[in-house]
């Protein structure tokens, strides 16, 4: 595909369950970002990967959140023991470099019930 692909598009989970959200960035893009957006709110930075460098995890809200990027391509964001406040749209973006256009996926809408 030509764009950033995220899956699933929607996820409903029970409180306390673990979830995995997937992001397929644009091929060749070295930078990959995860953001969280609550309804009607701004973008909350979660984590950033750049090439082979150690990821910038400064935005992860708790140790229940983790992410990995395998082979410099696909990324998975994992939320353990989900809570209702984790309900939001999780957006992934990738860019060729850190000072070029970032392309966003359509997001995963997570609902914790």
């Amino acid at each position: 595909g030509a764009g950033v692909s995220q899956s699933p598009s929607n996820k409903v989970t029970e409180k306390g369950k673990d979830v995995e959200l997937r992001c397929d960035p644009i091929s060749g893009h070295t930078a990959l970002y995860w953001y969280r957006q609550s309804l009607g709110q701004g973008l909350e930075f979660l984590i950033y990967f750049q090439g082979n460098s150690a990821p910038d995890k400064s935005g992860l809200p708790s140790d229940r959140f983790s992410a990995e990027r395998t082979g410099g391509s696909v990324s998975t964001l994992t939320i353990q023991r989900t809570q209702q406040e984790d309900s939001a749209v999780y957006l992934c973006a990738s860019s060729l470099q850190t000072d070029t256009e970032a392309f966003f996926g359509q997001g995963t809408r997570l609902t914790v019930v």
Partner: protein
Amino acid sequence: QQQVKQSPQSLIVQKGGISIINCAYENTAFDYFPWYQQFPGKGPALLIAIRPDVSEKKEGRFTISFNKSAKQFSLHIMDSQPGDSATYFCAPGGFQKLVFGTGTRLLVSP
């Protein structure tokens, strides 16, 4: 600390008017200054961007004005249209990651 402050939080403009959104940043290492536009249910998409070697860039009805000494850049939407109603984010970047502002909700009334 890479702080980015965007204003106003929300804006209502009449059709045909001028919409102005401002972004102030702290990190002087930023060298890429974009504005993103987001419609409900969609991810943000690049609208227009500027590099620090110019003070202004115009693309159709959209203009970025950049003031390096004040560490500010702004988005001007001329002849605003109802279809411009969206949330706008500034996201300066450079050697390090892009840093998104908190967003401005623009409503253009018919």
